[in-house]
């Protein structure tokens, strides 16, 4: 069979489908979004009984996937790295309860922060929860590890964290697929009350069970075909190399005719101890290549540094920040640097910008105009397309920290004495993590203006469903915003003056006010029109 050309994300999605997946529950986030989208498209095209849904946030998504696993079926939950922070409460406790139907959690990390606010390495979460982590090195391995991972998860009774990075998620390669397995039937485990009710007495027992399981996880890593020790013929070597995940590809790129050093490729954690000891025994120092934080390097080095010398991101052999490339790996290997032409000085930066015709533009134009009258104003914004309001020509916002932080920070700043304190948040981010903050504001009668710039979609990630579409107004009312200080408006040029006077009026009001400028994302709108045309042809 001819190989199929898959993005890393798509290889994961197809593998999950082929492994008998019953449901994927996620929240969109670059670079993880295409996994769930692929399964949605598959389900729509084939009418296969696979649930593939966008949830309000990563926590509700992971909990829903856990519920499906509880019922005996195979489930998947996908998110970007910072999304796992949102789901961490669930995540840390799934390793206590364990799972029933096979359950995989995909975290798509973003070293170099191509579209993220940090480059946290979520292999740390695997250590924290003490569950196995898979880190495939290429698209075929991603397919195979996910396909087999559901079996392993079921056999172990624990979820597996699958960690990929941007280059893996968004790179295509040919992938050979396997036969599709039927879905599990509903089957709740007999001992489920002794596992899923995490009262202290049960939780203590479950923690012992998890601790006992560590040997099984270690043994699995040591026997995994995805962890591979490659020892060249000569008996003693100066440098041995540990290459994790896609770092192995960059290493290979620099040794096209095969490795001259001992190499341990790692794609499954906990770290395979046997192989590491063997590697350490065959050389005088170890170079660690890993995309993200120096997690393996720190473990190998140890606080007292009693073993062989360990090199990597901590001693400056590689930069502490930023993603790996074939070039910085080459330098770390001590190979002669490549002479490259510099980027000509004439090349100007071309940052992303809000689309022409985007409703967020109208909102920022009106807000900026009004705030000229209030020089002490501060605007707390959030995660989404509208974060681009930070850039020229708008320069309209002062903060962007995490999903939902606009409303809550604006309240804290208002209570510290900032006036006017304005929050700007999108509709999808509002239903993700803004609603609880709004409830806090209402309860505290905080003096702030909240603008929910509603484009009826999750725009930044390519137009996925937004959980509150059509109901933002009702949600605000339900949370207790006074109807006379809750306004809707269509952000268009013709409403510019009206929007300005609304903003001014609500800044003058000493209490919680919410304005919801609502107009569909122009990209989503254009896509809908295109799809309709294709259907009629």
């Amino acid at each position, binding site marked *: 069979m001819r190989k199929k050309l898959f993005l890393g994300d798509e290889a994961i999605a197809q593998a999950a489908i082929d492994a008998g997946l019953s449901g994927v529950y996620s929240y969109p986030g670059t*670079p993880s979004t295409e996994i769930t989208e692929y399964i949605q498209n598959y389900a729509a095209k084939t009418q296969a009984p696979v649930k593939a849904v966008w949830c309000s946030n990563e926590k509700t998504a992971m909990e829903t996937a856990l519920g499906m696993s509880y019922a005996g079926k195979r489930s998947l939950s996908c998110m970007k790295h910072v999304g796992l922070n949102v789901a961490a409460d669930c995540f840390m406790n799934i390793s206590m309860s364990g799972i029933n139907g096979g359950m995989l959690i995909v975290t798509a990390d973003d070293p170099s922060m191509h579209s993220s606010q940090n480059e946290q390495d979520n292999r740390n979460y695997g250590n924290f929860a003490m569950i196995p982590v898979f880190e495939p090195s290429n698209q075929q391995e991603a397919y195979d590890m996910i396909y087999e991972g559901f079996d392993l998860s079921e056999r172990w009774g624990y979820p597996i964290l699958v960690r990929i990075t941007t*280059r893996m998620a968004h790179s295509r390669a040919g992938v050979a697929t396997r036969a599709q397995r039927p879905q599990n039937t509903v089957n709740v485990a007999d001992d489920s009350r002794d596992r899923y009710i995490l009262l202290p007495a049960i939780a203590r027992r479950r923690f012992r069970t998890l601790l006992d399981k560590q040997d099984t996880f270690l043994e699995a890593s040591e026997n995994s075909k995805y962890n591979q020790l490659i020892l060249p013929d000569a008996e003693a070597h100066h440098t041995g190399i540990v290459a994790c995940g896609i770092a192995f590809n960059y290493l290979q790129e620099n040794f096209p005719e095969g490795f001259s050093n001992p190499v341990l490729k790692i794609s499954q954690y906990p770290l395979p101890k046997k192989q590491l000891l063997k590697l350490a025994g065959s050389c005088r120092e170890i170079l660690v290549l890993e995309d993200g934080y120096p997690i393996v390097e720190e473990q190998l080095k140890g606080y007292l540094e009693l073993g062989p010398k360990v090199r990597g991101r901590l001693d400056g052999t590689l930069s502490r920040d930023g993603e790996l490339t074939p070039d910085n790996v080459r330098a770390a290997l001590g190979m002669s640097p490549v002479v490259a032409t510099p980027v000509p000085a*004439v090349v100007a930066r071309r940052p992303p910008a809000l689309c022409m015709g985007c409703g967020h533009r109208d909102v920022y134009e009106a807000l900026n105009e009004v705030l000229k009258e209030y020089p002490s104003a501060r605007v707390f914004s959030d995660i989404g397309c509208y974060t681009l309001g930070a850039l020229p020509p708008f320069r309209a916002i002062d903060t962007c920290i995490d999903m939902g932080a606009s409303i809550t920070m604006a309240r804290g700043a208002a209570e510290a004495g900032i006036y006017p304190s304005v929050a700007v948040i999108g509709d999808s981010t509002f239903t993700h993590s803004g609603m609880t903050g709004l409830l806090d504001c209402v309860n505290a009668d905080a003096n702030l203006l909240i603008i929910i710039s509603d484009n009826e979609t999750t725009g930044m990630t390519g137009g996925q469903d937004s959980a509150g579409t059509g109901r933002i107004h009702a949600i605000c009312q339900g949370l207790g915003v006074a109807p006379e200080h809750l306004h809707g408006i269509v952000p268009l040029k013709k409403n510019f003056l009206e929007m300005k006077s609304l903003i001014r009026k609500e800044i003058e009001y000493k209490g919680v006010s919410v304005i919801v400028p609502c107009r569909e994302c122009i990209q989503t709108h254009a896509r809908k029109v295109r799809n309709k045309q294709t259907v009629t042809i």
Partner: protein
Amino acid sequence: MKTDIILAGVGGQGILSIAAVIGEAALEDGLFMKQSEVHGMSQRGGDVQSNLRISDRPVASDLIPLASADIIISLEPMEALRYLPYLKPGGWIVTNSRPFENIPDYPPMENIMAEYGRIENKIILDVEQIAKDLGSARSSNVVLLGAASPYLGISFDKLENGIRNIFGRKGEAIVENNLKALRAGKEYRK
């Protein structure tokens, strides 16, 4: 055989459909390939690029190392220059001549052309005009692919099949327009 290709442009210009046609042709040729792309933020009118690597042996890195790309194919003249550090000595630049000016400090065209004066192997063509003259303005990216076709290490008929496979579901008229655009690009010589 090994060809490393950098595709460059501005978000929304359509570099990924060029990648799709080359990828399709490479698979049909039984070649190995990896193609990494940029999603997310950069779609909003920012610079975008894709690394496409084709080889008769398995491809290791998803990213092209410095000074080793055989060709830069760009839908925008300034964007091609952004990836100059990746072009190998003697490599080719095939670029659209028409600037996409969505930033306030876009450099004067003569400064950009002065840079091109220092580049040995290049084809600079107005793909939008050529596509328009053919009566299919939307095929300008395929004109560019045609102009780059001699340097890809893939036979022209495989690229034609790639066009048929990628555009097939849009109907025979669209396939024909794109095949015409591909040939027009190939025949362009300054």
